């Protein structure tokens, strides 16, 4: 008999694995992505494909450079997921090189300089988004009105190729529009009050179903919510972070709204616009960059929610999700250190419990 393997126990294992987790997340992202495809048509699909292909390419390149097994590591699905999330946050009709540069930043700078999967302290997709937003403010805020697939206004394949890979046709300006956040921000800066601005853009119904200008995958709060609930139902994520993000954002914006409804939009508007819903379920919940303990996750989520509202309300960027996530990512190690669970038989500060004489059964 050949010698059986000599390693320490346990000698059996649960069915849970990294790859399955990644696939489950992708499945839950599918509804919102499909809607994005439908709303923004062929250019969005092309950009999506380019971004994911670039992410895979850079991942393979980095793995080869680090002399690791390329095929096996690629199959874990993490690069696809990063590319996917990044593509979801880009303007749908952005040129191809935005997706490629973004994938480069995310995979190389965000992840592989730290050693690859599981090592990065910052969310790679958010690193890419923030860096693109800072470096390329114009293409990163070129939103278009939804032009559903097969509808008369939608670009055909030729036009789509031109939008993504070539020079955009002259009439693209006719469809470009401001996102809800950008529009409200700009109008508020222009000295108008909300009760005058909101009716122009704010339609909760449309925001909810994604029939508004915005990033490809972030527009439909409803479908993102559905995906998120599935994610939680499959026990891939705990609801601590999403609830903390949404709750704190709603609380702060609600408070502000109560103080001055003319200056500050209502919490529902905050929740359903921009990337907040997407962030709450799919970005903030990234295992690698979020705290591990329940309390830590609540603190982290609350931090993101508050920062998002603060940056949206007072900051110079229309959307604060990327920055908020990065800032809280930076705090994650500290949060982890200070929110360790109580050890069995010890009190919170790590001292052994005292025996209470009256305790005996």
């Amino acid at each position, binding site marked *: 008999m050949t010698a059986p393997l000599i390693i320490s126990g346990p000698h059996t294992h649960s069915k849970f694995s990294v790859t399955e987790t990644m696939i489950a997340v992708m499945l839950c992202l599918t509804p919102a992505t499909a809607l994005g495809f439908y709303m923004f048509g062929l250019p969005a699909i092309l950009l999506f494909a380019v971004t994911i292909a670039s992410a895979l390419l850079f991942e393979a390149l980095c793995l080869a450079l680090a002399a690791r097994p390329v095929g096996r590591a690629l199959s874990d699905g993490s690069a696809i997921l990063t590319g996917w999330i990044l593509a979801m946050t880009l303007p749908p009709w952005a040129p191809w090189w935005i997706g490629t540069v973004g994938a480069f930043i995310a995979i190389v700078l965000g992840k592989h*300089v730290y050693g690859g999967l599981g090592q990065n302290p910052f969310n790679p997709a958010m690193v890419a988004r923030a860096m693109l937003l800072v470096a390329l403010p114009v293409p990163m805020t070129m939103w278009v009105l939804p032009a559903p697939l097969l509808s008369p206004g939608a670009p055909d394949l030729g036009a789509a190729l031109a939008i993504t890979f070539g020079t955009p046709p002259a009439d693209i300006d006719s469809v470009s529009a401001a996102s809800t956040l950008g529009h409200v921000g700009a109008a508020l800066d222009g000295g108008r009050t909300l009760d005058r601005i909101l009716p122009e853009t704010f339609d909760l119904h449309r925001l909810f179903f994604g029939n508004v200008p915005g990033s490809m995958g972030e527009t439909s709060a409803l479908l993102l919510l559905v995906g998120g609930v599935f994610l939680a139902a499959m026990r891939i994520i705990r609801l601590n972070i999403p609830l903390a993000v949404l709750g704190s954002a709603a609380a702060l914006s609600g408070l502000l709204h109560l103080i001055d409804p003319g200056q500050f939009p209502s919490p529902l508007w905050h929740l359903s616009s921009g990337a907040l819903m997407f962030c709450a379920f799919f970005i903030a919940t990234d295992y690698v960059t979020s705290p591990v303990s329940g309390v830590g996750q609540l603190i982290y989520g609350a931090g993101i929610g508050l920062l998002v509202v603060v940056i949206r309300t007072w900051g110079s960027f229309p959307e604060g999700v990327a920055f908020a996530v990065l800032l809280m990512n930076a705090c994650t190690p500290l949060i982890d250190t200070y929110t360790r669970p109580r050890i069995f038989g010890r009190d919170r500060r790590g001292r052994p419990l005292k025996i209470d004489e009256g305790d005996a059964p």
Partner: protein
Amino acid sequence: MQDYLVILLSTALVNNVVLVKFLGLCPFMGVSRKTDAALGMGFATTFVLTLAAAASWCVETLLLVPLGLEFLRILSFILVIAGIVQFTEAAIRKISPTLYRALGIYLPLITTNCAVLGVALLNIQQGHSFAESLLYGFGSAAGFTLVLVIFAGLRERLARLDVPAPFQGAPIAFVTAGLLSMAFMGFAGLVSQ
């Protein structure tokens, strides 16, 4: 009252002395290996910076301006800062020898922490009152402490990571500092100053 709040927010977050103004990078890289040491360094710097901001304001307005000796500003500020640092060093050595050892060479180096002199000079340049100077110094130091501690937490985790050989040590720390700096850009525009 609101002005003071704005100064505090502005110096601590928006115009963070390390990540936005890029002052005081030496202790930022040097004392961020361990959270405890970073916290100690942060407190020591806070003490020195606040005191130096106030003292330099006094020297400027009570001594230099009346005597028309503004050209001695940098010289006298450095003198004042050096004195305060020496005092802090003696005090920490007595109060917490552990912290004294952990801070090592960086404690006397607060003297040459450009953030300290920078904040003192900025105070004069921006024509702050005494209270504003004090707050400006404190806010800057609080921002310094905040990012130092956050960065130390990150670096403690970095130390356990499987970072590729070319990036180990200082390079990955600089990459991280850069990303952190980018994250702080999110605060841009929070207060207009």
